[in-house]
């Protein structure tokens, strides 16, 4: 066995695997890696064709230095997930060039496996998952190639065998996937930086949310166990902005309070589960007022849900929401102060208008209604392209341009309410979503991002109000695209594609189906973590603890292996040997009485000789031999029962004889 040379098959499959492993990583790898990859690939091919030699030691050292420097420059350091993965891929590429022995090839294969695993941290969709089977297959084929005796075998049998191994491994994998205990992270690791960049941010200027609204990218999906609530009731809260500095809205103190204020559930609750796309931010989305039985996140002082860590991978959580709940009926002083905060100066016209409203209307509720009436009746326009305003943005919007987007309306209304002495804040999140009737779920995209207002009334607590509804009710009832039909050009590709499909019936159906599959994938595969696992297993087996679970897994694996062994070895094909075993026992029984079969003695000859030696038992012995002969040579169907019976008769008689001879 030549341990040094690498078979051609392995080399071919390693090159294929390299392409397949690196492809999904391309999106987040620096460009120079591609150049390195092409150069090294060419070199390897030339080595194989004996047109080039292996790289010398100094070149390898230099390459490592260059790669290190490149990673440092591209990722601002050598730590972090992105830098680590880039280093891993670079090692994978470089190792392939300098690979000489079979042991080197094994190192390359293992690096490849690890690189495939890291690709899931960046992209874990259904397609990515299925695609990753290809590099795994190629790497397994390379492993098989390493073991083959021929150096120049054909590549297909290896990949066919690898495919067979994978298929046979699938049942065991499913058992492990379902039952292997999912524990929480053991320690925190650097996260990928290249994902979760779109979405709501900690603070927002009016323009930000408009930009966000032009993307068709998915934010989350929610599936309801009961009937879907009407679209206009779907206000998904993410954050509240309490702090206004004259230009930007930002989170205020109550959104950092780690304790939920007092609230009383009322009316009927809604049960649903949310599968969230990675957002890179720690907050979750829910309808008011959410309870999380799984305890994934904390309900904060402003009723938004916050997790200790950012959502870096698809996350699934179950929610029970009480839409009619009374929130914080008594307002603490600090919250009231925050809800009334305004910059010291600026926007004088708005302040004056607020004072006027306060004077002319007796109750805060009347002020709110007057404001809404104003938005409804005055010539306001809902647009994604608000014209620029001057230094006082609220004044400019309310009295001059009168053109704006939801954040403008929400911001302006909050400003006026605060100026009129009513505690209020801007709420950002998503509104509405696309109903997928087949799956009874709602897909919420970035273009559903929205901002609205909530104000506090003594006795009623916080009340939600949406000024945008007064200006463009179709935004709430149908969606953003319907609200601004002439501004379609603003949307990005994903949103436009979405719009185009909507007009073609069957294509839209297809799209919705695909969405459904993806949602199932996210819900049942990606979201299958600790609590989800326990819930599922409890649903199946009643309450279980991890010990019983462990025993169950081991048992299931053993059964799986046993079934596989049966399929592989097909023991039922060896029925014939039952006769041989029977004859062996017959020989053993006779051997105890000193009659031994010679190696070349045939079954009948031995039987006759034994019958002669033990004349009293001749009949039983010959009967057994006849039975054996009939089954083994005369084509009678194998009947181990009859053979056993004849054998037992021989044994019984022999025992009796032995007992008698002892007695004598």
């Amino acid at each position, binding site marked *: 066995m030549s341990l040094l040379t690498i078979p051609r098959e392995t080399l071919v499959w390693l090159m294929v695997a390299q392409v397949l492993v690196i492809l999904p990583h391309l999106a987040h790898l620096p460009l120079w890696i591609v150049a390195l990859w092409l150069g090294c690939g060419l070199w390897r091919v030339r080595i194989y064709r004996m047109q080039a030699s292996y790289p010398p030691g100094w070149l390898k050292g230099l390459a490592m230095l260059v790669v290190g420097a490149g990673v440092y420059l591209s990722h601002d350091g050598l730590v972090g997930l992105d830098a680590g993965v880039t280093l891993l891929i670079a090692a994978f590429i470089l190792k392939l060039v300098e690979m000489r022995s079979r042991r080197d090839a094994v190192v390359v294969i293992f690096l490849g496996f690890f690189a495939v695993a890291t690709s899931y941290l960046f992209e874990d969709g259904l397609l990515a998952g299925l695609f990753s089977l290809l590099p795994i297959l190629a790497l397994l084929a390379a492993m098989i190639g390493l073991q083959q005796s021929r150096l120049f075998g054909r590549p297909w049998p290896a990949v066919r065998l690898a495919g067979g191994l994978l298929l046979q491994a699938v049942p065991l994998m499913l058992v492990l996937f379902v039952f292997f205990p999912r524990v929480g992270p053991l320690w925190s690791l650097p996260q990928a930086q290249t994902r979760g960049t779109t979405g709501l941010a900690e603070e927002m200027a009016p323009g930000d949310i408009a930009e966000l609204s032009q993307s068709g990218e998915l934010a989350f999906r929610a599936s309801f166990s009961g009937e879907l609530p009407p679209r206009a009731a779907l206000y998904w809260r993410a954050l509240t902005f309490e702090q206004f500095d004259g230009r930007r809205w930002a989170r205020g103190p109550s959104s950092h309070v780690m304790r939920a204020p007092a609230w009383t559930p009322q009316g009927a609750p809604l049960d649903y589960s949310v599968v969230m796309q990675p957002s890179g931010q720690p907050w979750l989305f829910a309808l008011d007022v959410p309870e999380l039985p799984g305890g994934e996140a904390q309900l904060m002082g402003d009723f938004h849900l916050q997790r200790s860590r950012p959502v870096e991978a698809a996350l699934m959580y179950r929610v029970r929401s009480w839409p009619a709940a009374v929130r914080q009926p008594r307002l603490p002083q600090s919250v009231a102060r925050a809800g009334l905060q305004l910059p010291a100066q600026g926007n004088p016209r708005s302040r004056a208008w607020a004072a006027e409203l306060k004077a002319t209307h007796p109750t805060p509720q009347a002020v709110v209604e007057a404001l809404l009436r104003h938005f409804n009746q005055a010539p306001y326009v809902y647009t994604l392209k608000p014209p620029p305003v001057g230094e006082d943005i609220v004044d400019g919007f309310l009295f001059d341009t009168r053109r704006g987007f939801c954040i403008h309306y929400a911001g302006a209304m909050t400003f006026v309410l605060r100026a009129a002495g009513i505690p209020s804040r801007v709420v950002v999140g998503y509104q509405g979503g696309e109903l997928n009737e087949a799956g009874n779920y709602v897909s919420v995209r970035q273009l559903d991002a929205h901002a609205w207002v909530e104000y506090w009334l003594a006795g009623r607590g916080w009340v939600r109000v949406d000024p945008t509804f007064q200006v463009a009710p179709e935004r709430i009832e149908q969606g953003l695209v319907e609200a601004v039909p002439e501004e379609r050009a603003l949307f990005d590709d994903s949103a436009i594609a979405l719009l185009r499909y909507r007009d073609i019936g069957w294509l839209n159906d297809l799209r919705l189906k695909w969405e459904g599959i993806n949602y199932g994938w996210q819900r049942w595969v990606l979201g299958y973590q600790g609590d989800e696992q326990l819930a599922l297993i409890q649903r199946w087996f009643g309450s279980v603890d991890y010990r019983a679970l462990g025993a169950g897994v081991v048992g299931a694996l053993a059964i799986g292996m046993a079934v596989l062994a049966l399929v592989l070895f097909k023991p039922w094909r060896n029925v014939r040997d039952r*006769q041989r075993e029977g004859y062996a026992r017959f020989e053993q029984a006779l051997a105890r009485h000193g009659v031994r079969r010679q*190696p*070349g003695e*045939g*079954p*009948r*000859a031995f039987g006759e000789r034994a019958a002669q030696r033990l004349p009293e038992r001749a009949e039983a012995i010959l009967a057994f031999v006849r039975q054996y002969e009939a089954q083994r*040579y*005369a084509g009678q169907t194998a009947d181990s029962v009859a053979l056993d019976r004849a054998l037992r008769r021989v044994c019984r008689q022999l025992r009796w004889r032995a007992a008698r001879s002892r007695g004598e």
Partner: protein
Amino acid sequence: MLSELEACLTRINAVLLGKEAQVRLAVTCLLARGHLLLEDLPGMGKTTLSHTLARVMGLAFQRIQFTSDLLPGDILGTSVFDRDSGRFVFHPGPIFAELVLADEINRATPKSQSALLEAMEEGQVTIEGATRPLPDPFFVIATQNPANQGGTFALPESQLDRFLMRLSLGYPAREAEKALLMGGTRRDALAHIEPLLDHTRLHEIQAEVARVRVSDALADYVLRLVEATRTQPQFAWGLSPRGSLALLAAARAWAFLDGRDYVIPEDVQAVLPAVVGHRLRERADPTGLGGGTLVQWLLREVPPL
């Protein structure tokens, strides 16, 4: 069917005294549609055996005495110009008989030998472009003298392979020889033998023999035997596939003679010395075909189960 064969055996044994085992093997050989090579010193009853077999089985008998000047035409036949018809007329040679005794086959030249052996193998004769079928059944008993004598042409291995069995009659036992001495001349006895079968009946029996069952386990035993000859060091060469086929055919006939419709390992063992003895050679013995010890080794060492 079996009783007829038993009667045949009895009758042959009445003429050829004390040779029951060899007679049984010879009949086995005939039933298995194989040819027989008798190797013995002169005067041991080779001719008597052939004669008796032919008569009892009701087969047309011809004897060819092989000599060094025997030509292939003397065996196969020649075309002779016939004045009356003005054409060449084919005069069939002695080979056109159902049982042919080729006496002292190693006396003839290889050319004549191969004429006979080819006819044996193919069951037909091609003379002057015309192919003529030999009678069916067609059974050749060739005899040869084992002693190294001048002017003989030993059959090469490839030709020996064409005989299903090689038998040696050997000296008769004392009792048998005494009976022989006291009895009348055997030629007279021969003349009085009535045939018990005819060739259609023999045909039927042969067809029946070919239907004797060979189980998987038995085929494995035959394969083990053949493999042993191919892998063990003391064998100069292994058995050919023709050899293994011959072994199985002979075992079938033997089982049939024993009244069974299936073969058991003992049948194979019974015919093994006669069937493979002349096909094997010991490596340590480059001259001659001393297969005897090898056969004994096979019988002793190869597991029949």
